[in-house]
């Protein structure tokens, strides 16, 4: 099982969402994708996408202006 990191700090709509999807498409079942970003709406929208895709949202954390979202494919 691989752990894939996606850094979208400083990126704005729709890049965090798109890069998350790209990484999830490339990942194998069971892989963990961690997305790190700063665009506030994406912190809410990436979990929505994860739910729509039927994947597992493992963790959402916020530290200052930076959020981290962990997803299991």
């Amino acid at each position: 099982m691989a752990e894939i990191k996606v850094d979208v700090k400083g990126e704005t709509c729709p890049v965090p969402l798109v890069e998350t999807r790209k990484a999830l498409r490339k990942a194998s079942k069971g892989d963990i994708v961690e997305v790190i970003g700063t665009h506030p709406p994406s912190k809410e929208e990436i979990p929505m996408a994860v739910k729509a895709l039927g994947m597992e949202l493992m963790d959402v954390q916020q530290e200052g202006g930076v959020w981290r979202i962990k997803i299991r494919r």
Partner: protein
Amino acid sequence: MTDKTTIILHSGDMDKLSSALIIANGALSMGMEASIYFTFWGLERLKKGGLEKGPLSRMNMLGIGRWMVKRRMKKANMVSLERLLQDFKELGGKIIACEMTMEIMGVKPEDLRQDLIDDYGAVGTYIQEARESKITLFI
């Protein structure tokens, strides 16, 4: 069956093309299929070297407004239309070029970026796809 988003891009305006691509990429990212039908002025943007050439839909002011908005987009770190289009294709988005527009405007297939176009179609193709779509927009 996967949910679908179908967009008609009738406008060739830079800001409207940008909205169409952002919506389509959002749909693809959230697990939907997406296709964009480039028709009328929208088809101009599929011409070789035409993607970034669109005017602003309002307050273009002979290009001054467009220049200002572009500058602000850059400052806000918004990605380019080319990047949005490449992401759209990478996530499996489909591009359909309107054949009637090509005939009216005298556009030949070789004038267009054929590597991006998945299909050439008319209204029937759109209706067939739109009737199975959860979201359909005319931009």
